């Protein structure tokens, strides 16, 4: 993500603070003089909601804000569209400072380019699903026929067309949130704010909605800011994740970055109890040196003897065969080569072990485990195009997992 410099910054947040209380200036002064959040609550009763947040969000990415309850994530997302007034700092959306807009500009921006999806769905109970979906357009004065036609199209997209004339209370939670999502999509915003949007759903429905969101994102890239306390969710949908603690952003990075290099114990604690294996894939565990590799053209030119000798010297039973592009050809073992020698064949293809399909580098660890327990041989790991990455064996896998456990314990 970071590497692609062409990426446009959709939102830039600079030195953003939110203090809840009658005299934010006093609290700001105290923060500047080095007092922390707890001191301020104790001395003044004022609560620091967000402090010193500075970050950017790229156009078209899903940016997840994560944290425990009370960490300020819901406050932060509401500062972005000014549902909550910032105490100081800037929120630049496409270069315009939301924090200093007058009410008219703000309403204009919200109607045109921003939408929000809420944890409690926040559908209006007295309106039908169709009218709810069309709400954003109704507010900005789009005629009924047009807005209902547009809303209907989006309801089809989210699979709710058949329920257009029902009332929200007649729908299940998952369907209500589809309607909530539709309401946001109908105004065709370039920016969507989603506050714990799927947290109220059961795990199955949650996964389904995440899938729907990713599908929609594939069709039409929007900038999505997604607040969540669910790490699985954050890793699944997030291009980048910001982790918040006590009103402060403690780390921002891709899911991989954060899992691999947690910046402190708080971030590390997030992953306690989380199945790290889910976020590691075969290519992360593959070991290049574990199994000797041979090249089909050069190493087998003189038959199997040279290869058998080299395997014996290395005290290995198995070797992988690659072509000149380092693409995997297959696996050989000392036994398989001796057998083909005994049967009088000098063809490499006779010595290749059948039934040993390579592992895709993106295979996640839990699936990899399933394959490897049944497998006495080392498995080759390849990139999608077939290029060799390394080998996994049961031992390599166990060692790697033990190491991950240690870093996150």
């Amino acid at each position, binding site marked *: 993500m970071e590497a692609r410099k062409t990426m446009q910054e959709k939102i830039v947040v600079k030195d953003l603070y939110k203090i809840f209380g009658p005299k934010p200036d006093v609290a700001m002064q105290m923060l500047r003089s080095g007092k922390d959040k707890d001191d301020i609550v104790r001395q003044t009763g004022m609560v620091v909601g967000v402090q010193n947040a500075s970050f950017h969000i790229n156009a078209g990415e899903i940016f997840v804000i994560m944290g425990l309850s009370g960490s300020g994530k819901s406050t932060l997302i509401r500062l972005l569209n000014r*549902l909550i007034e910032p105490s100081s700092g800037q929120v630049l959306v496409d270069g315009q400072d939301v924090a200093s807009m007058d009410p008219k500009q703000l*309403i204009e921006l*919200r109607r045109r380019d*921003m939408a*929000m999806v809420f*944890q409690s*769905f926040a559908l*209006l109970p007295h309106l039908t699903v169709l009218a709810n979906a069309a*709400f954003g357009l109704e*507010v900005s004065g789009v005629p009924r026929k047009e807005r209902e036609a547009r809303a209907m199209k989006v309801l089809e997209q989210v699979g709710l067309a058949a329920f257009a004339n029902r009332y929200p209370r007649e729908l299940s939670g998952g369907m209500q949130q589809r309607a909530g999502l539709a309401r946001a999509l109908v105004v065709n915003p370039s920016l969507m704010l989603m506050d714990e949007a799927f947290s109220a759903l059961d795990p199955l429905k949650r996964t389904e909605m995440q899938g729907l969101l990713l599908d929609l994102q594939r069709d039409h890239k929007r900038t999505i800011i997604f607040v969540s306390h669910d790490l699985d969710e954050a890793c699944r949908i997030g291009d980048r994740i910001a982790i918040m603690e006590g009103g402060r952003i403690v780390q921002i990075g891709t899911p991989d970055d954060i899992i691999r290099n947690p910046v402190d114990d708080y971030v590390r604690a997030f992953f306690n109890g989380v199945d790290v294996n889910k976020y590691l894939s075969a290519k992360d565990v593959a070991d290049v040196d574990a199994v000797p590799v041979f090249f089909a053209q050069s190493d087998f030119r003189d038959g199997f003897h040279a290869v058998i000798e080299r395997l014996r010297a290395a005290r290995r039973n198995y070797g992988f065969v690659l072509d000149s592009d380092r693409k995997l050809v297959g696996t050989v073992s000392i036994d398989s080569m001796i057998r083909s020698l005994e049967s009088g064949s000098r063809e490499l293809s006779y010595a290749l072990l059948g039934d040993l399909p390579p592992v895709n580098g993106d295979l996640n660890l839990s699936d990899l485990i399933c394959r490897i327990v049944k497998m006495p041989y080392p498995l080759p790991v390849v990139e999608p195009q077939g290029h060799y990455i390394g080998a996994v064996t049961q031992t390599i896998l166990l060692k790697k997992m033990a190491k991950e456990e240690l870093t996150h314990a």
Partner: protein
Amino acid sequence: MRDFLPLGEWAEKIVNFIVKNDHGVLAGLGDVVGQMTELTEGFLHLIPDWLLASVFVALGFWRIGWKFAVVAAGALLVIIGTGFWQATMATLALIISSTLISLLVGIPLGIAAALNRRVNYLLRPVLDFMQTMPAFVYLIPAAMLFGLGRVPAVLATVIFAMPPVVRLTALGIRQVNKEQVEAGITFGCTPLQVLLKIQIPGALPSIMAGVNQTIMMALSMVIIASMVGGGGLGNNVLASIQRLDIGLGFESGLAVVLLAIILDRLTESFGVPKEERIARRKNQGQGA
């Protein structure tokens, strides 16, 4: 011993001052209220008793169900049969005009109290005062300011009956789901749009409960207001007390009760969401 705090004297002086210096404002207000009540009463009297009674029964069937329609038909027959129809309609006219005024003033006040903390702080003690001051007490200044008749009756009733709708409107609006309000703001609603499209519809059941309470309070107050010449059933009740006429007291009292039951159930049904009403109706059907 002389009271060191002659509040009563001051109150009297204030009322007297207003009477002397109102420059026709009170008279104008009184005219409007009087006209309104008279027109309503005239209209109710214009319709034949059987037709109006049928309308009530039909409303009861539509909003609640056939069981209530039967109860309403019985109640109205009792009122007509005991000869209290005219008096009951006069009372209903008083209730209608005082309730209308109460809602016209009370709902906006409730909205203001919900949206503005300062208004709320100012309003609360005033509402407490209006509700707890013995109802009779309003009749004195009302009669002094507006003379005897329907006008002071209606206005004293307004004061007594308004607090519930103010309180329940404010409560309803404050209790609207916070994220629904946020959703409105997020999609670019102006504050007025938030109020009209989200807060008031969301508060409607509570507001309707307030309307119902206000009507019931108005009913009890217009009976008392017969003391300043409000007329209607109150006159009969008052006469029965003065003459210790048990029969008249029972019949007129019963008419009040029956009117109360019909008004209560009918107005309550307007505060219940449609689906719930249908569900209740189904249950009733199964019960039968």
